[in-house]
């Protein structure tokens, strides 16, 4: 190899290559981050339920369906029976409702696709957050405007801990809100 070229390769191209590789890694890291954290995850659901229609236009409270949110760890997806509260009468002609009714009557499992998930070793509790008057939308985004639910915020440990440490600053409108715990067993066991 030409010696000058050799020098050149070592002096200029090698650093450029290393630099480019680092840049490529960083860009990939940031670009793929949302996907990794599930932000924008909008799976297709077995029943084309519209939060925009129900929670937005009709202003049905979140807790009408998500009854667990004040009671325990899980917000709870409503049982099929909750849908049937209204839809045993309302909109019975719609194919989606007919699908729903069929599931309700047959007792088969209605398999919703999960949108938000924390790992099994994370023991998030909805009720301790809701009882502090932290609105659903801080984590779940403006659900009332979503036709199809998609994840808006990252649910990584970093995001949880960030908010826990600065809760009193992030939510100045909530009076008496203290910092959230940031010790391990607050979330993990």
């Amino acid at each position: 190899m030409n010696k000058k070229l050799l020098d050149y390769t070592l002096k200029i191209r090698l650093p450029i290559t290393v630099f480019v590789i680092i840049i490529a890694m960083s860009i990939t890291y940031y670009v793929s981050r949302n996907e990794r954290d599930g932000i924008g995850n909008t799976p297709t659901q077995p029943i084309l339920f519209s939060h925009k229609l129900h929670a937005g236009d009709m202003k049905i409270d979140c807790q009408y369906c998500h009854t667990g949110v004040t009671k325990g760890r899980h917000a709870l997806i409503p049982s099929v029976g909750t849908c049937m509260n209204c839809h045993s009468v309302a909109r019975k002609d719609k194919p989606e409702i007919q699908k729903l009714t069929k599931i309700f009557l047959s007792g088969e499992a209605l398999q919703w696709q999960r949108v938000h998930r924390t790992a099994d070793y994370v023991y998030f509790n909805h009720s301790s957050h809701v009882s502090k008057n932290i609105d659903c939308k801080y984590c779940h985004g403006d659900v009332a405007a979503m036709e199809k639910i998609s994840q808006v915020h990252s649910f990584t440990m970093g995001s949880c801990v960030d908010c826990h440490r600065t809760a009193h600053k992030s939510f100045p409108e909530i009076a008496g809100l203290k910092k959230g715990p940031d010790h391990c067993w607050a979330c993990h066991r």
Partner: protein
Amino acid sequence: MSIDYSLEPSIIEGKPGLASIDSTIAAPMETRPNKNFYMALSVTLTMLGIGAVCLGYSFYYGMGLWGNNNPVGWGFDIVNFVFWIGIGHAGTLISAILFLFRQKWRTGISRFAEGMTIFAVMTAGIFPLIHVGRPWLDGYLMPYPNQHGLWVNFTSPLVWDVFAVSTYFIVSAIFWYIGLIPDLATLRDRTVDKIRKTIYSIFSLGWRHSNRHWHHYEMSYIILAGFATPLVLSVHTIVSFDFAVSILPGWHSTIFPPYFVAGAVFSGFAMVQNALIFVRKIFNYEHIITLDTLEKMNKIMIATGSMVGYAYAMEFFIAWYSGSPLETFVFVNRAFGDYAWAYWIMVSCNVIFPQLFWFKKIRRSIPLMFVVGVFVNIGMWFERFVIVVTSLSRDFLPSSWAYYKPTLYDIGILIGSFGLFFSLLLIFTRTLPVVSIAEVKAVSDGAQPTHHAGGSHAE
């Protein structure tokens, strides 16, 4: 301070010419290896393969395949780690400490010893990574920003280990590489093969033997030696902290740092001596790596061996003197408990056999010194075994005592570590100069200006 080096006996025997030093040292790189080399390599690679298979099974099924149990959480894994780190101590000691002490006999062996350091640290470095239960999460041991917002525990000796071992590896490698640059340049200028030339060019970075460079080069060498010296002492000190910082009787001891360093030098020298005996024979380096040099190494072994022996005695003394019944129990248990066999192997190999080196005949007899060297290595491996296993197997609560028994997987991985080390060493002997060309030239007879001609020389 000026020392009259001319009064010293010759380091290099037989007054070879500078060119012949070149050709002697470069010979292994310029000739094709013979059958024996390949046979040796296949043996070491087989050993490595055994280790790899055992390790593969351990990863697939879990490290429960090893003998580790509940009180004895660390077994062969950490024993091997400490052993190999210890082996890795001789190289830097020879190249840095002896350099600072102006021990010229080091020149013939320093490169090889440094190489052994690097390979031993590489071998050792594998163990902290594989001894964990979830090796795929080894990254958690490194401090790097992450989405958990969590860092490492800086108070844990294992994290110190991570820092110490990686620093030691990097600094040793740099030290080694800096030493290699002039030699690579020499090789570059000797070779006619284009590919070799390119490779040597890349790694010699365009070294020209310029004295304007030698000037800084020597300064950097002193600086590096100056750092490597406390570093080499710190590394085994920190490894000893793995034990000394704990509260386990038999581990929790202030004597550990010096005791471990002495032991490391001891075993490191034994291993270097063993390997050199072969190298000087096979590559005809007897005049460069002289019997005098080996004898000096044996003298260091007797010194460090006695230090280790002193430490063994001192542990008993302190156990008695401290009045701590737990401490006393541990040491009595070591000598007379379930693992007495290991203890007495350790004592005989480390303390009794090296005493033979008081006899000049034995010190200068190649076969005998080889045997003693092997014993020292066995003994030092057992020392780590005794420390790790006996202390754990019978600790505070008699209810949770248990006997540790290694499995074949443990032994396979130990064999594999030797396979890795010797494979790397064998490849090293064929790819890089195992003796520092420039340094040997510098100390060969007539290589330096006569003192009267040039006035006092610069130090």
